[in-house]
């Protein structure tokens, strides 16, 4: 009699467990991936940028999540204008890039959408996206930069990537338009030991800039501009150099961050 009750109790206890005991209670790590590139709509050339928060920002917004959704943590393009994130939960996302080009999402003063060129993508195993944009400026080397007496001397040419009329037609409806938005404000020469040279990775001892007030640069558009680094780079090692230019317009609007258009970096041996 007593034995039977012991059996009943232990049987009841055993039946209280669940199969979950034998499973690892863990969610799979995010395994979906997105790979993308940002290219010039006209030429198909990649939009070169800085690696860091002054470069091209990639923002993902998961649409399948629910009503009150916050963007995923932002990440940024590589210097060559491509980006990749391999730790995303699979789902449908709105993908938006912001950089030194005509904004993809344009709204007027009251928040009414004017144009939306952002992409809605179902991100699965490996999803590729391509953004065709209109860069504000194109900047190119003219000849090879030289290092003389520890100073980099470079010649660059800056041209508009989007015509003044088109810029105006797309930006003006967003409100608060000012003609000085299109002024080129500065040209920078970034020098660094790092191959990811740019604003973030610049070496402040040598990087230099030329600033232009108002529309002073307009006459120099398409012309060869000479820029020289400051300080003296010690000889014996190689440095990476890159030039950048920007206009007086911040992206995304209201952030105050005026992003630069870049040319490709060059490695130079310091004699």
């Amino acid at each position: 009699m007593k034995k039977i009750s012991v059996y009943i109790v232990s049987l009841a206890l055993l039946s209280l467990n669940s199969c979950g005991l034998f499973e690892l209670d863990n969610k799979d790590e995010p395994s979906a991936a997105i790979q993308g590139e940002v290219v010039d709509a006209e030429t198909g050339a990649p939009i070169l940028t800085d690696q860091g928060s002054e470069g091209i920002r990639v923002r993902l917004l998961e649409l399948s999540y629910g009503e009150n959704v916050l963007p995923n943590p932002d990440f940024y393009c590589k210097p060559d204008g491509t980006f990749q994130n391999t730790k995303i939960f699979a789902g449908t996302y709105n993908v938006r890039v912001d950089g030194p080009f005509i904004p993809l999402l344009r709204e007027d003063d009251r928040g009414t959408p004017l144009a939306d060129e952002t992409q809605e993508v179902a991100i699965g195993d490996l999803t590729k996206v391509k953004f065709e944009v209109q860069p504000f400026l194109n900047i190119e080397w003219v000849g090879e930069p030289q290092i003389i007496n520890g100073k980099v001397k470079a010649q660059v040419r800056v041209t508009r990537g989007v015509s003044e009329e088109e810029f105006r037609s797309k930006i003006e409806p967003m409100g608060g338009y000012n003609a000085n938005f299109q002024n080129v404000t500065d040209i920078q020469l970034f020098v660094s030991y790092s191959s990811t040279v740019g604003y973030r990775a610049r070496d402040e001892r040598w990087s230099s800039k030329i600033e232009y007030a108002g529309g002073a640069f307009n006459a120099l558009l398409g012309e060869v501009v000479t820029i020289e680094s400051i300080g003296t780079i010690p000889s014996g090692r190689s440095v990476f150099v890159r030039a950048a230019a920007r206009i007086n317009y911040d992206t995304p609007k209201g952030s105050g961050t005026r992003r630069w258009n870049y040319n490709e970096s060059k490695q130079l041996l310091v004699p």
Partner: protein
Amino acid sequence: MNRLYILLLIGVFCVSACTDLDIPPKNVIGDETLLTNESGMKVYLARMYSRMPFEDFKYMGEWGMEYNGWLNASGIEGTGEAVNRDGICRAFTSERTAYWKDAFVLIRDANYLIETLPEYKESFPEVTYNHYLGEAYYARATAFYAMARRFGGVPLVTRVIKYPNDENPEIARSTEEETWDQVLADFDMAISLLRSTNPDTERGYATKYVALAFKSEAMLYAGSVAKYNETVPGRLTGLGLKTGVRVMGFDPTTWDAASRRYFREAYLAAQEVIKSNRFSLYKKKWAANDKEAQYQNMVDMFSDLSSTETIYAREYTYPISTHAYDAYNSPYIFKSPLASGTCPTLDFVELFDGFPRYPDGTIKVTTGDRNNEGTYVMYDSPMDFFENAEPRLRAYVIFPGDMFKNREIELRAGIYTGSTPISPLFNDYSYANAERHYQQLNQYTGVPKSLYLSPRELTDQEIVPVNGVPTAAAGENGPFYNNGEGCLTGLLGRKWLNPDPAFVPAEGKSAQPYVLMRYAEVLLNAAEAGVELSLAGEPSPDGSDMLQVATDAIAAIRERAGANPLLGSITGSEAGRNLVRKERRKELAMEHKAKWDLRRWRVNHYEARDLFWGEARDKDMFSNNSRYKFRGLYPFMSSQTGQYFFDAHFQWVSQKTFEYNIVDYYFAIPGGEVSKSPLIDQQPNR
């Protein structure tokens, strides 16, 4: 027998008591206990006051409102006033604990008082009743003001939200303009209700004049933001994603009118304080043409509780309510457990009068026209260099060789053994060369060496014979190039330190009051609002001569400070405005005011950084794009002559690089608050 027990048991169950147990618990104090008498009200207000967003010895810009005095230092938030060795020395771009949740706790307490106190109106004389109600409005104004200058538009919770059954528990962010209007309305209510003076036993409560003074500060902030947002690329405005409300910045059609309105309110509020004649600049020991007296006067004013200049101070009492400012900021010889937390910069010192200057306005230490030209000017003692320094600066900063607590404060970067005259140690003093330090110089690393420096204190000091006497290379208080606990810049902070020689600093031993609002600031508020109104072409709101008010204010402050007197009068121009701003940078330094001034003037980002110091200075001298650094003034001794010379170089020990971008003018809303609410918007530019 068994039946008897059962019956008994049933009987026991039938014996029940009829006492009503539904009585209020005695350990929960209700409204009728608290809100019906003055001692109950003191308890209620004490809780509100303990949560007020006061920035004093218990506040750190890097950490936010944590009501905690650990590591407290002054002016280290990238304002250029001072630097500190630790990570807490960073530009004011966010606070670890955002002032959000705590603000709503305080606002709820205030709202509850506003809604409930009228039920107990008969318990108090009318003046007292009004005063308590005024305290609630004052607390709410203070909380909304503290939030508005951090976030722009915030949820205007002006009623008690009932949990869990409120019909409308979610409140979205209002526009920035509505938020400032609410701050204005709450201050105005407080001003109309608060009494003019407090009885002695209730020192520390708000008064009408406290509210007026803070109103002028808040409205100056609002007016400046409305106006100077326009000078920033992107106008710093945008609509919230969820609500479409302009939660940040001002509407292009209303900013101008709003800015004028706020400046008018700032001017009127400051003028009312001035005209009341209840306060005056502290001049107890002041004497004309006596620099020593003027200096001592300004040292005393911060700890004198009877000061006529103090409008509002947070008091401490040993041993029940203390802080530890002296334990972290005293010179190294008083280390206990830390030292030298506040090291003023040379850039800050350059705001003040009484120094030799180069043609570009920077402080002159060589015979040439700039730092790397000529030879060093030699001084018999380091204090000779500061002989004519403005007394106000001496009251704020401990100079090398000056006295503090009856001890001479020895600050020396090193000893130079080469021949005199001495050429500048570096050939490049520009920002690009900021990271090259004395210990990398050939004079130090070469053999034989002519420059001696010390990596650390005491037994780690390098010893050099000076006139046959073995002398430690660095001063007793540093700078030591491998120990950030010594002095970092060649200068130490004096403001807020307890000057009493008998006082032994330690954590929890300090009890100096923190002056949160003083008359000098009211004068500066009136002057700045007056000049801004003139610049905007506004007529004087009270008929007074606004520029004369500004001129008188600046002249009086300069006279008390022992600075060069103001020549001529202040004009309604940018030059006049910069003059007022510079005076503010000087007078209110290291009082948790400058970091807000830089924010509201919108001069912290690279494009506008020329006006960082109030006066115009070339930003490229101390910055490179978004980053910037500050300089120290390093005293060296020449072993051949026993004389001193100074080298002006970018911060040598624990060098700090600050970074400020335009997005930082509005702090991000805490992410958790945005994600859990269907209505709270993040800043549109983030």
